[in-house]
């Protein structure tokens, strides 16, 4: 069917067909993300509900399955209130500035061998750069709201995101060293072999630091001081309502999914089957498409996000800073030296 559509588009004049085809590919990525975000909020409420021995939302639709749609419709039809003396232009554009990078980063994410929108050379660098732009939405939202709580939340959030970005970047340098490439497809191909060829084993400290930093980067519990209901009400988005608020929410959940998928790609072999190299099971699971494995792995990390939120108390602000600067960054630097030495020595089965 895809070939048929491509054939049809060839009939169009040259740049037009290309543009239409690319837009179709973008939609094929963005629409599932939006649906995933909607049902991630539902999953969060259900999972946390069951962890706290409650049922969670179960009123809208069969067993509550239409809850996210009801929430979306409600947010769409509410009124967007702009606070007095707020900078209206910046106030409106701030949610867009968080949302756009969280979607744009997906352009280089490979879902299967060759199933990627743009297979660029410096894919990992692109993701780092684009996700680092998202912090502007938070800062501008806090500043433009003309509210003390919002500004405090924005400052906390910005300081936290910048601190953890360093640890995250260093963890990624380890992956780059191990794979010898910035291209995400090449990184996954470098992990071929078996479950023990994946990078989680040689890069174990970096793997843990990357995921924990990812939780901090997305401002999720236990690092959600930027929202901190008990101290600063809701942080940077306290003045936002209706659609502007839900765009912040969409960005946060899209970022969570992105971090989960990236962790799966870089440390757990992406679309590679976990049964690869095992005599009978490996052949048995051969026909399973790679994207299923990738989504399963990402789903595991998403569950961890929800599990963390239901389990851990919130970190104190100075403890967050200490963990980022004094614990994570030194560990990553030391482990970079270890990985570098291992790559030079050609220690197998990862680096030979």
């Amino acid at each position, binding site marked *: 069917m895809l070939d048929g559509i491509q054939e049809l588009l060839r009939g169009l004049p040259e740049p037009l067909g290309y543009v239409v085809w690319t837009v179709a590919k973008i939609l094929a990525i963005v629409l599932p993300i939006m649906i995933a975000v909607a049902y991630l909020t539902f999953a969060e409420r259900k999972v946390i509900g069951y962890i706290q021995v409650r049922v969670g939302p179960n009123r809208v639709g069969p067993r509550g399955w239409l809850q996210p749609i009801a929430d979306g419709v409600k947010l769409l039809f509410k009124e967007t209130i702009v606070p007095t003396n707020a900078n209206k232009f910046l106030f409106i554009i701030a949610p867009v500035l968080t949302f756009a990078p969280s979607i744009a980063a997906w352009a280089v994410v490979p879902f299967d061998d060759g199933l990627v929108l743009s297979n660029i050379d410096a894919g990992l660098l692109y993701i780092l750069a684009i996700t*680092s732009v998202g912090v*502007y939405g938070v*800062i501008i939202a806090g500043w433009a709201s003309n509210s003390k709580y919002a*500004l405090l939340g924005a400052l906390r959030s910005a300081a936290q995101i910048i601190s953890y970005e360093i640890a995250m970047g260093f963890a990624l340098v380890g992956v780059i060293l191990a794979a010898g490439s910035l291209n995400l497809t090449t990184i996954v191909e470098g992990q071929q072999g078996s479950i023990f060829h994946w990078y989680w084993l040689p890069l174990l400290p970096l793997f843990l630091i990357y995921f924990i930093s990812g939780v901090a980067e997305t401002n999720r519990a236990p690092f959600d001081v930027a929202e901190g209901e008990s101290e600063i009400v809701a942080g940077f988005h306290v003045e936002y309502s209706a659609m502007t608020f839900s765009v912040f929410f969409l960005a946060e959940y899209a970022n969570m999914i992105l971090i989960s998928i990236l962790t799966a790609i870089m440390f757990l072999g992406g679309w590679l089957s976990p049964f690869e190299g095992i005599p009978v099971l490996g052949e048995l699971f051969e026909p399973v498409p790679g994207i299923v494995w990738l989504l399963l792995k990402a789903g595991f990390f998403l569950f961890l996000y929800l599990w963390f939120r239901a389990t851990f108390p919130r970190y104190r602000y100075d403890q967050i800073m200490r963990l980022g600067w004094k614990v994570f960054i030194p560990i990553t630097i030391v482990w970079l030296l270890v990985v570098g030495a291992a790559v030079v020595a050609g220690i197998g089965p990862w680096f030979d």
Partner: protein
Amino acid sequence: MTFEELVFYFFSAILVFAATMVVFIKKPVHAALYLVLAFFSSAGVWLLLDAEFLAITLVLVYVGAVMVLFLFVVMMLDINLSPLREGFARYLPAGLLIGLVVLAELAYVYTRDYFGPERFPNPGHHPEDYSNTAELGSRLYTEHFLGFELAAVILLVAIIAAIALTLRPKRMSKYVRPEDQVVITRKGRVKLVDPKTDKTEG
């Protein structure tokens, strides 16, 4: 006009506009945001030169980190602009003179034939398998190794200097030491007392 030229003019127009606004806009926060826009559009122009590593690093370092800290500071400061504008007429002649000198210098250099499209022709595009990142890495760590390492050492000195300047040897504020917190035992915190109650027998 090819598509590439269209993209070039698009980014360049935004770049020139944003850079002008950085200078002329009155609110500091807006000026900082326009600077972010300028960095972003110049990254776009660099991408057209096949310099994807430099373009992405520009966004990563300047947009993602430096300008965030800048904004941070600008938002925290409560700058009152009116005293800054005082004495405008007094400084005007000196400012105009300096401006004219700079303009004359620029005009002098620019009217020689150091610049212009014929001096700097379009470098064209690299072959399909060219990797800007790999190329830059191998150049930096072979040909320009010494300069690169020297720059790194200078930055390290700057970091140490900044820390040395701001380091307070004595803690002025109350602070919880995590290393003390984790070695706490029950013995150090809880003291069990056995209150002697005045019980009379019987």
